[in-house]
């Protein structure tokens, strides 16, 4: 079963801006899916169409088999949306915001209360339930957005840059919670600028560029498909490094050197070659996040 099935979605805004140029992408039920793209690539437009905030110019979209145009109410019932920007009333209390959102999905306050309590507790907001939302810190507001999106227990959670501007500790907390949600069966689609987040959380991803999906697949297969990867080695001395043949060495300092491996070269081969040259390795780390490399290569192509 596909949680999201989008075919040839196009969107041209009244201003003439072409935001989507025939996007086709699918997300399987239970997946944790990353949608990557530079600013203005079309991520938020795509999410807007799925959630009913943006009207597509053409194309079709289905959420768990429900057409977003002809079976709009059923499709909406499946989705919980966490938008990029805070969009709750700053004058309302946390609890009231959740109860109103449940009401819009046809759940009475009485029926919504037990689950809302669980979600607020999970997200560390239970003690703040009677406070107006404007009194919350930035991180708490972000968590309130997640709590609001979950109050009707959606099968699909869509998060648009959920950890933007969130401190490290809170980000880790959110990662744990989202992972738990996903393990419990909630399908998650997430956009983010933090590529380590995608590498850590997502099983599949799509990269969108200028309104088109330019790459899609599992995170592991896409990373394996990369042509080169670069590491920084900390060594006892770089004096003998130049004698090692068959590897591409880059920036060199007395005790560190960059080395780029081709797709067919393994780290074992590198270590063996350095050992023969009497270079002792103390430490090794990727020069950059691999997904970051993949992302940059893709959007610059």
């Amino acid at each position, binding site marked *: 079963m596909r949680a999201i099935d989008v075919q040839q979605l196009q969107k041209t805004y009244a201003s003439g801006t072409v935001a989507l140029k025939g996007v086709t992408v699918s997300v399987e039920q239970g997946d944790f899916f990353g949608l990557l793209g530079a600013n203005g690539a079309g991520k938020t437009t795509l999410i807007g169409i799925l959630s009913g905030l*943006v009207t597509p110019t053409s194309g079709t979209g289905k959420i768990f088999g429900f057409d977003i145009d002809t079976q*709009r109410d059923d499709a909406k019932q499946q989705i919980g949306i966490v*938008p990029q920007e805070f969009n709750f009333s700053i004058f309302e209390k946390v609890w009231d915001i959740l109860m*109103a959102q449940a*009401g819009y999905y*046809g*759940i009475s306050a009485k029926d919504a209360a037990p689950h809302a309590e669980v979600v607020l507790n999970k997200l560390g907001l239970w003690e703040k339930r009677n406070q107006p939302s404007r009194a919350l810190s930035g991180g708490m507001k972000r968590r309130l957005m997640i709590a609001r999106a979950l109050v009707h227990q959606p099968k699909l959670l869509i998060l648009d840059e959920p950890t933007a501007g969130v401190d490290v500790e809170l980000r880790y907390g959110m990662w744990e919670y989202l992972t738990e949600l996903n393990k419990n069966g909630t399908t998650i689609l997430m956009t983010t600028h933090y590529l380590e987040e995608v590498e850590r959380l997502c099983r599949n991803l799509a990269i969108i560029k200028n309104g088109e999906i330019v790459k899609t697949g599992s995170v592991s297969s896409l990373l394996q498909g990369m042509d080169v990867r670069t590491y920084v080695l900390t060594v006892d001395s770089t004096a003998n490094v130049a004698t090692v043949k068959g590897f591409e060495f880059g920036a060199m300092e007395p005790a560190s050197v960059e080395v780029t491996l081709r797709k067919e070269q393994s780290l074992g081969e590198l270590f063996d070659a350095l050992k023969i040259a009497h270079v002792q390795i103390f430490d090794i780390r990727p020069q950059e996040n691999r997904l970051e490399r993949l992302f940059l290569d893709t959007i610059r192509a």
Partner: protein
Amino acid sequence: MNKTIQWIAYKTIVSKEVNRFMRIWRQTLLPPVITQSLYFVIFGGFIGSQVRQINGVPYMAFIVPGLIMMAVINGAFANVSSSFYSTKFQRNIEEILVAPVHEAVMMAGYVTGGILRGFLTGALVFLVSLVFVRPAIHDIVAIILFSFLTALVFSIAGLLNGLWAESFDDVSTFQTFILVPLTYLGGVFYPIDSLPPIWKTISMLNPIVYMVDGFRHGFVSGGQPIWIGASILIVLSAVLSGIAYTLLRKGKGIRS
């Protein structure tokens, strides 16, 4: 469309609207009471004592129904236009748009909120008027019917204003340049029949004339047959509803 879901959604919007105007009662309920009290004192008391009877009743008794209607009109209109525009401005309208709430239900929820505020402000002004005059109830049906139709028409008009507005200036522009002149020229302070024929004809194009006239009929006999005014207001509310519903369906100002 699941009726239970839509009914709960409707109640949620209404409850949110009522909570909003009750929470900020100093901005929503108190000002009309003070303003209309001043009208009672200045026009009804000081100036009214210099004016002969109109339609067989003292001037104060003549203006009370119109002043109550003014409160209903402004309360209903301002509630929906400001609330709806604020939710657009703060983008929390998206809370409703992402949920399976039908446009008709969304419209009904906001309009009901406006009607309730219109009723409440009208009732408060009526209570204040009792300090100055004891109006006789002549036709309770007319009072209920015209309060409802007036609040309905101006709640829908407020929704249209909120939908079209792109800034807070746009919200106040309609009130200042259209609503206020129409209200003051709507026969609140004078009988339309006393106008020269040409001005009387022009005034008959103003829907507020029918609202005030029909509501006044509930307290003071006379005026036009109420079915004429009621029919005009029913048609007007149907037309405005149709426009508002179409705009909501198209997502005017709320969907990209």
